[in-house]
C-alpha cells in the first residue's frame, strides 16, 4: 500500500525548527537484563515496523505543507556509536526518521518528533521489546498491554487527533514574559552529555505524597529550586524560572492515536532572596493543577491549531510558513521557558515481561536557548531522571540530585555517557 500522511499540528513546528543544535529527536530506551542480540532485534524490528505505518515514513517536500510518504525500504538496527539524539542524516537511514539502537543491555528508539510523541514512541518500543523477547524464546503474555505485532494497524492509531478534536472557538493565546535562560560553555565537540539518576519510584511517590504533591509536581519543584540554588542565587536576576511540561492530550480526549497528541504548559516561580523549596512546591502544585484543567488544555490546543487552519495561512508556500514558525518558536516558545521536564510516567509492561526489563530512560534533546533538558520515566518501580545538556557546567544537575538525595533520603544511582568530558 502506498500510504501518505499529513504532518500533524505539533509535527509541523518540529519540522520547521529542527537543525543540528535543535534536532527535535528524542530517545526512549529500555535496559534489558541481558545483552541485546543484534540479529534478533533486526528480526523483531522487521515485523514491528509494519505494524506502525505512521513511523515507517520518509519526509517529502510539498508546496504548501511538507508530508510523510510510506517508506518501503529496510530500517537497519544500529550499534550505538554516536551521542544520544544526534541529527538524522538522510543517507544514513534509508530516509527513515527514526533509529533503533542497541548497546550492551540497552534497546533504544530515537525518533523525530514530527512523527510521534512520547506515548507513540513508548508503544512502539514496548511492541519491539515484546517481539524481541518472543523471538528469544521467552514465554510472555501480552495481557492487553502491548500492541500485537501481528495485528493490522488500526485506523484510529493513524488519525490526526489535533484535527479530529479541534473545534473552532475563541481561544486566547497567552503571551508569557521572557524566562531565565541557563547559560554555559558549549561542549567541545558539540554533542549531548546525558546524566541518568535512577531511584525508587514508590519511595519518591510516598515522599511527594507526604508533601501533598504528585511526582511531577515534586520533581518540577526540585528542578526549579536547583536552578535557583545552582545558577541564580548569587546573581541579580529578575526573570522567572519557568519549566515547560508536555501534557498528554489523550488524558482529556478518548484518542488512540500513535501520532503527536500533546500540548505544553508552563509553570514558573519568580526568584527572590529567600526562596525555599516548600514555597516553590506550593506554587508549582497550584499552577500545575490549574493548568491541567480540561478547559485550559483544550484552549491551549485550540489556539495552536487555529493558526494552521487559517485560510490565508494554508495558501502560503511552506518555506515562508517555516520562517514564520521558526521566528515564533525562537521568540515566543523558547524565550518563555528555562527548561523542559517531560515525565512519560509509568510504562506498564505485562507481568511476565517485567523480569526481562530492568528500567527505562527518556532523553529530551536540548536546544540553543534551553541547553539543559530533563526526561523522566518509570519502569518496574525504577524511576529514571535523565538530564541532557550541551554545556559543560553541571551545577544544576548536581544540585538537583544532591537535593533529592539529601531532602528525601533516596538512594540515587547516577551514570553518564561522559560526552565532552576530558579527564587527565
Amino acid at each position, binding site marked *: 500500500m502506498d500510504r*501518505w500522511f499529513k504532518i500533524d499540528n505539533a509535527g509541523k513546528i518540529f519540522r520547521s525548527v529542527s537543525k543540528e543544535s535543535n534536532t527535535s529527536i528524542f530517545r526512549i530506551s529500555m535496559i534489558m537484563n541481558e545483552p541485546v542480540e543484534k540479529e534478533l532485534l533486526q528480526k523483531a524490528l522487521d515485523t514491528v515496523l509494519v505494524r506502525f505505518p505512521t513511523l515507517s515514513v520518509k519526509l517529502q517536500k510539498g508546496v504548501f505543507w511538507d508530508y510523510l510518504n510510506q517508506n518501503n525500504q529496510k530500517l537497519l538496527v544500529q550499534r550505538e556509536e554516536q551521542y544520544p539524539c544526534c541529527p538524522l542524516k538522510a543517507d544514513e537511514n534509508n530516509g527513515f526518521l527514526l533509529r533503533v539502537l542497541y548497546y550492551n543491555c540497552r534497546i533504544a528508539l530515537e525518533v523525530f518528533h514530527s512523527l510521534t510523541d512520547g506515548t507513540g514512541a513508548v508503544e512502539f518500543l514496548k511492541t519491539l521489546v515484546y517481539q524481541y523477547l518472543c523471538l528469544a524464546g521467552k514465554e510472555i503474555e501480552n495481557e492487553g498491554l502491548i500492541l500485537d505485532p501481528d495485528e493490522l494497524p488500526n485506523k484510529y492509531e493513524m488519525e490526526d487527533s489535533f484535527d479530529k478534536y479541534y473545534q473552532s472557538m475563541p481561544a486566547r493565546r497567552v503571551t508569557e514574559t521572557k524566562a531565565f535562560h541557563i547559560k554555559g560553555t558549549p561542549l567541545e565537540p558539540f554533542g549531548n552529555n546525558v*546524566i541518568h539518576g535512577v531511584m525508587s519510584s514508590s519511595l519518591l511517590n510516598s515522599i511527594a505524597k507526604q508533601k501533598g504533591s504528585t511526582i511531577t509536581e515534586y520533581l518540577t519543584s526540585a528542578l526549579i529550586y536547583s536552578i535557583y540554588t545552582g545558577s541564580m542565587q548569587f546573581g541579580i536576576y529578575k526573570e522567572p524560572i519557568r519549566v515547560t511540561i508536555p501534557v498528554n492530550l489523550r488524558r482529556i480526549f478518548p484518542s488512540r492515536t500513535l501520532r503527536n497528541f500533546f500540548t505544553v504548559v508552563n509553570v514558573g516561580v519568580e526568584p527572590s532572596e529567600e526562596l525555599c523549596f516548600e514555597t516553590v512546591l506550593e506554587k508549582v502544585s497550584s499552577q500545575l493543577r490549574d493548568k491541567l484543567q480540561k478547559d485550559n488544555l483544550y484552549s491551549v490546543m485550540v489556539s495552536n491549531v487555529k493558526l494552521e487552519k487559517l485560510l490565508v495561512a494554508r495558501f502560503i508556500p511552506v518555506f515562508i510558513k517555516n520562517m514564520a514558525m521558526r521566528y515564533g518558536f525562537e521568540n515566543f516558545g523558547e524565550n518563555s521557558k528555562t527548561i523542559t521536564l517531560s515525565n512519560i510516567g509509568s510504562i506498564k509492561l505485562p507481568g511476565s515481561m517485567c523480569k526481562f526489563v530492568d528500567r527505562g530512560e527518556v532523553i529530551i534533546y536540548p536546544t540553543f536557548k534551553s541547553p539543559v533538558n530533563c526526561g523522566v520515566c518509570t519502569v518496574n518501580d525504577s524511576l529514571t531522571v535523565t538530564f541532557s545538556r550541551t554545556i559543560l557546567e553541571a551545577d544544576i544537575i548536581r544540585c538537583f540530585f*544532591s537535593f533529592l538525595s539529601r531532602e528525601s533520603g533516596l538512594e540515587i544511582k547516577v551514570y553518564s555517557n561522559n560526552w565532552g568530558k576530558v579527564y587527565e
Partner: protein
Amino acid sequence: MNKCKHCGVFIEDEKRCPLCSRNIGEAGEGAKNVWYPSYGKTETVPQLNFAGKVFFFISIAVMSICILINILSGIGNPWSLFVIFPVLYLQLLINNTILSKIRAGTKIILQVMGTSCFLFFIDLLSGFYRWSVNIVIPFLLIAGTFLITVIVIKRKMLWNEYVGYIIAMIFLGFLPVFLYLTGVADEIWASAVSALYSFLTTIGMLVFANKKFKKEMTRRFHI
C-alpha cells in the same frame, strides 16, 4: 558501587562522579562505563569543500578589486558589472553545479535560473536589445524541462522524487509569457513555444503517468 560524598549519589562502574567530576577512588583502574560506548577522540568535522571556499574567496577578491578600480577611475562607466556577473555565475557553476552533492534536479533548476539572470543582466548592460528575454531564456527553460523529463523517464524508481522539479519547471515555463505581457519581452513566438512546451509536458504527465501524477499532485499541493 561507590558513593560520592560530595554529591550524595551512588556511582557504578566509573572512576569519577559524573556530577562533580571528583575522583571517587575506590572504583579501581579497571572501571569501565558499561552503559555507553567510549566515544574516544571524536573526529572534528572535516573542512568540507575547501576548493569551494578558495574559489569563493578569489571571487570576492576579484569583485571588490574591480569595484574599487571602477570607483576610483570614475563611476560613469560601470564596466566592473561585466566582471561581477560572470564571476557570480561561475560561483554558481563551480560551487553548486560541479562541487555540490545536491540532487541533479536542483542543479538543473538553479542553473537555468542562474544562467537566465546572468544573461538578462548582460543584455541589460549592453543596451537591452532583449535577446535574452525574447529568445534565450524561453529556450533555456525548455531545455531545463526537457532534461528533467529525461531523468524522470530514465530513473523510474525516483519518479516521485523528481516530480517536484518537473512541477517547478512547468511553472517556470510560463514565465516568458508573463514577461511578454508585462512588456519586458517584445517578441511572443519563443515565449509561446516555452508555454506550449510546459502545457504539453503537463498533459503528457497526466496521460502517461495518470494515477501516480495525480496522487503526487494531491500530496504536494495539499493544504
